C-alpha cells in the first residue's frame, strides 16, 4: 500500500517535471521566434533569404504539385461516384474546388512541407550546431539567429502559402482532367458551378490564412528543433523526427480550430 502510494507520487512528480520542461521549452521557443523574426534584413539578408526561399520553396515545388494533381484527380473520381447517385454530378467542380481550397491544399501542402523542407531545415541547423558553426559564428561576433535562423524562418513563411496556391491550382486542374475529360461532366457546369459557389474572400482567402498560420508553425518548429537539439548525430536524428511529428500534429490540430472559427459558425 505504502509502496503503491510512493509509486503514484513518483508518477505525479514525473508528470509535473515533464510539464515544467514542456513549458520551459515553449518559453524558449517563443523567445527564440521573437528574437529571430524581428530585425530589418540587411542587403546581405535579402540574398540569404532568396537562397533559402529557393531551398524550401522551389525545391519543394515538384512534390507539392505532383501530390496536388493526384489528390485533385482522386477527389473528382470519388466525388463523381457519390454525386452521380443524386444526379448532381454538375456540382463536381464545386466539390473539388471547395474541398481543395478550404481543407486539402493548406493541410496536405503543410504536411508535405514539414516532411520535405522542415526536416531538412532541422537537420541543416542541427548539423551547423554539431559542427560548432553556430558557436564560431557567435565568436566572430555575428548573431546566428539573424544570420542563419531568420532567413530560413522568413523563407518558410513565404514559401508555404505559394506552394498551397500551386497545390490548389493543380488539384482543380486534375479534377478537371478526370471529371470533364474522362468522366464526361459538362465543362461549363464544372467551371460554372465552381464560380458561383466559391467566394474569393471566404474560401480562397481563408485557405490562404490557414496556410500562412501553418507556415509559421511548421517553420518555427523546424528551425527551433534544429537550434535547440543535443548536438550529436543521435540528437539530430531525433530532432528531425520530432519536427515531422510535432508539426504534423500542430497542423492537424490547428486546422480543426481554424475551421471551427472560419466555417463552423463560431464568431
Amino acid at each position, binding site marked *: 500500500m505504502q509502496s503503491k502510494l510512493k509509486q503514484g507520487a513518483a508518477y505525479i512528480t514525473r508528470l509535473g517535471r515533464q510539464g515544467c520542461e514542456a513549458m520551459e521549452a515553449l518559453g524558449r521557443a517563443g523567445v527564440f521566434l521573437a528574437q529571430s523574426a524581428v530585425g530589418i534584413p540587411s542587403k*546581405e539578408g535579402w540574398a540569404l533569404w532568396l537562397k533559402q526561399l529557393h531551398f524550401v520553396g522551389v525545391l519543394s515545388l515538384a512534390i507539392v504539385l505532383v501530390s496536388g494533381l493526384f489528390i485533385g484527380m482522386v477527389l473528382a473520381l470519388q466525388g463523381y461516384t457519390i454525386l452521380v447517385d443524386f444526379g448532381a454530378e454538375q456540382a463536381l467542380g464545386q466539390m473539388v474546388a471547395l474541398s481543395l481550397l478550404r481543407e486539402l491544399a493548406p493541410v496536405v501542402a503543410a504536411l508535405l512541407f514539414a516532411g520535405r523542407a522542415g526536416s531538412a531545415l532541422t537537420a541543416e541547423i542541427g*548539423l*551547423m550546431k554539431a*559542427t*560548432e*558553426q553556430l*558557436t*564560431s*559564428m*557567435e*565568436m*566572430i*561576433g*555575428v*548573431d546566428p539567429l539573424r544570420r542563419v535562423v531568420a532567413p530560413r524562418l522568413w523563407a518558410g513563411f513565404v514559401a508555404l502559402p505559394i506552394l498551397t496556391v500551386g497545390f490548389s491550382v493543380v488539384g482543380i486542374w486534375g479534377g478537371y482532367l478526370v471529371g470533364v475529360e474522362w468522366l464526361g461532366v459538362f465543362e461549363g457546369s464544372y467551371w460554372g458551378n465552381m464560380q458561383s459557389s466559391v467566394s474569393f474572400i471566404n474560401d480562397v482567402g481563408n485557405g490562404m490564412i490557414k496556410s500562412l498560420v501553418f507556415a509559421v508553425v511548421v517553420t518555427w518548429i523546424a528551425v527551433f528543433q534544429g537550434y535547440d537539439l543535443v548536438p550529436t548525430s543521435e540528437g539530430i536524428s531525433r530532432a528531425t523526427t520530432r519536427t515531422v511529428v510535432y508539426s504534423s500534429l500542430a497542423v492537424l490540430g490547428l486546422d480543426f480550430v481554424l475551421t471551427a472559427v472560419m466555417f463552423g459558425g463560431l464568431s
Partner: protein
Amino acid sequence: MKVNQPMTDVPFIEIEDLHFSRGEHDIFRGVNMTIPRGKVTAIMGPSGTGKTTLLKLIGGQLTPDRGRVLIDGLDVHRLSRKALFALRKRMGMLFQSGALFSDLDVFENVAFPLRVHTDLPDAMIRDLVLLKLQAVGLRGARTLTPAELSGGMARRVALARAVALDPELILYDEPFVGQDPISMGVLVQLIKRLNQALSLTSVVVSHDIKETLSIADHLYLIADGQVVAHGTPQTLDANQDPRVSQFIHGEPDGPVPFHYPAESFYRDILGHASVTRAG
C-alpha cells in the same frame, strides 16, 4: 586607461573565483587565473575537466554561477549583447573541428568576418584574404569547399579566418587533436609565428603535452575543477606534486585512477559467480 599600455606584465585576461556547474555536476570550483598580454598561455588538464567550457566562459557564451572574467578590464558577463559582440570582434577562436561554414568556400570563409564587420571594398577584402591564406599556406586552396579539405587543412583555414580581423586575442581549442605529425608540426609553427608576428595574446587549451610545452610561455594545469599548478614549462616539469607529474609525464595510474569507480573487483566477480550458481 590601461588599454594602450604596451607593458606585457599587465594581465590581458583575469579570471576570479570562477564557479560553473552543469546540472548536478560541478565543473569549476573557484578557478583563478591571470593571462598575460602578448604571451602564449596554455591551459592543460585531463579530458573531461572542462577546458573547452573554460574557453566558452571566456568568450561569453556561457555564464558562470559565480565569479567573473575580465578581458582587458571588461567584465565579459556584465556586458550588453551589443558590447559583447563588439568585444568578440577583438577575439578569434579556433575550434576543435575547425567549424568552417559548410555552405561557403575557403575564400568566403576567411572573408566572412571582414564582410560582416567592415565596409572594405571587394578588392581590398580579396587582398586581405589572400594574405591570410598565404600565411597558412593555403592560398592555392581558396576555391575548395570545407568538405574537400583534410582535417589539418580545415584547421589552418579556420586559423586564417580567426586572424582575419587582426584580433588581440586568440583562443585555441585543442588545436593538435587528431592531427598527423606533419600537420601538428605545421600548426605548432603557425601558432608560434602568429603570436610573434601579430604580438597577440594566445590561449591554448590542450592535452598534447609535448607540442604545448614547446610553444607555451606559461602553463596552467587544471584538475577537479581547480587550478592545481601553474608556471613556466620548466617549473612544471620539475613539479613533484603527483597530480602534476602524472599528467606531465603521462603515467597511466596515479591520482587520476585508471579504473572508473566501481566496487571491488573481487566481490564483483565472486558475487556474480555465486548468483549464477544459485540460479
